């Protein structure tokens, strides 16, 4: 569960990037976060990953209070979250299998479990035939599916996808969001940041619209684009 209460984030003195927002995302939810460039979406993601700290308010993620979380506890906290980035962030010197397996090596998982689990998630994203390929040998869509498999491999409670369709064509975008929806159906909470309103309208669900550091819309949409009217 994600719960932000009256949260503000200030990078520079007096300059709030996030201004007293309240957001609650229940376990098992699928939430789109939209907003224009500079609206505060990236800062919100960094906040959820404890890459930046809130200057005010309380931040609870997966049962961890991020305002009081000590630095040495951050790795353990992050193991409860899977992250997918727009630029994939795959390690070019590792194969598809190694890119995914290394997440489990980080947490010292047994070798037999790594083999079993990695094979399972590779199958889930449909890349069984690419296990020995390197990222440079894959298309943008395939790379993003590897990134998705990597985010899923340690069975996270929360999956954060930061513009996951930003570097792929529209057809693949639908495929990727479809995969995220499927993952959500299995019980994983998914937060997807995007600026592609077409995708949001197509898939529907809960949507949070952020503008100038504040939440200007937070509701369920079902194919309509009424939320856009409130976007500045």
């Amino acid at each position, binding site marked *: 569960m994600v719960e932000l209460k009256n949260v503000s984030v200030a990078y520079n003195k007096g300059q709030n990037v996030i201004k007293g927002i309240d957001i609650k995302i229940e376990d098992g939810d699928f939430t789109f976060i939209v907003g224009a460039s500079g609206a505060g979406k990236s800062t919100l993601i960094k906040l959820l990953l404890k890459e930046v700290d809130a200057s005010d308010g309380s931040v609870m993620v997966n049962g961890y209070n991020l305002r009081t979380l000590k630095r040495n506890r951050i790795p353990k906290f*992050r*193991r409860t979250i899977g992250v997918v980035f727009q630029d994939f962030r795959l390690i070019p010197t590792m194969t598809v299998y190694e890119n995914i397996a290394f997440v489990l090596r980080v947490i010292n998982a047994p070798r037999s479990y790594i083999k079993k689990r990695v094979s399972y998630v590779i199958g889930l994203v449909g890349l069984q035939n690419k296990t020995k390929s390197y990222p440079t040998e894959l298309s943008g869509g395939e790379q993003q599916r590897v990134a998705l498999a990597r985010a899923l491999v340690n069975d996270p409670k929360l999956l954060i996808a930061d513009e996951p369709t930003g570097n792929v064509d529209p057809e693949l975008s639908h495929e990727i969001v479809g995969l995220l929806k499927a993952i959500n159906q299995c019980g994983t909470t998914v937060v997807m940041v995007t600026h592609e309103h077409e995708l949001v309208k197509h898939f529907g669900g809960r949507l949070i619209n952020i503008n100038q550091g504040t939440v200007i819309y937070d509701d369920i949409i079902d194919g309509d684009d009424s939320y856009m009217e409130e976007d500045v």
Partner: protein
Amino acid sequence: MGIATTCVLTVSLLLVGVFSLFAMNVEILLTSIESKNEIVLFLKDDVVGDDIISAEQAIKNLKNIAVVEYYPREQALEDYIKQMEGYESVFEELRDDNPLPNAFNIQIKDTSLITETVDQMVSFEFTDSVKAPTDFATILNKLKNVVSVISIVLLVALVAVSIIMISNSTKASVYTRRREINIMKYVGATNSFIRTPFFFEGLFTGLVSGVGASVITYFGYTALMDIITNDISFWEIIGVVEPLPFDNIKYIVFAVYLCIGSVIGAIGSVVSTSKHLKV
């Protein structure tokens, strides 16, 4: 870390090592020159027989005395005549009326205390006069002090430069792997988990550099000493002991190279990684 870092570390170790060996040899040279300078204490004419033995004991009882050797007047005359080659007959008649005094050739432990020691010798009843290279000893001591200070300053500077060079080199190496580090942080890797491979890589690079520096130093030093000692008999000309043989210190040099190399390599690598861990 690649070949560039290994080369930089090898060169850095060589700079420190070569300078240390140079400083050690200068120290040996100065100590050798120092030991060649003797004090001569001339006895009064009336000091004879058992009084000479008592005088020797009194001198030995002084704190700063290393060696005391009695030098009888007869021996002094013999040596003098030998030195006057071709004019021996002129001095032969001196054997009947030897004008030279009995003396002690004395070596002291610490030449920086030569003035005090000479003053103590002069105060003895049996002392006629004392001939001591006080000015030379003072200059030599000043020279030794200057060499020591310069050695320490240069050594510290060289080590500092080496660390900076290694740090920059490893930074570049770590920078190329920042994406890997960044991803590790996002998936929940601890700092120690991330640092460990960099630590061992740095350690290994340091050890390889240490071996490289040891081999270069061994062959370089041996070749240089062969040239100096064989071709121009440099050490005989200045009348001091030979330079420090490398065989005597090779294990120490190798150990120091390996230790400094591995420590600098490992620390440089870990420190350079730290910047990318703040995610």
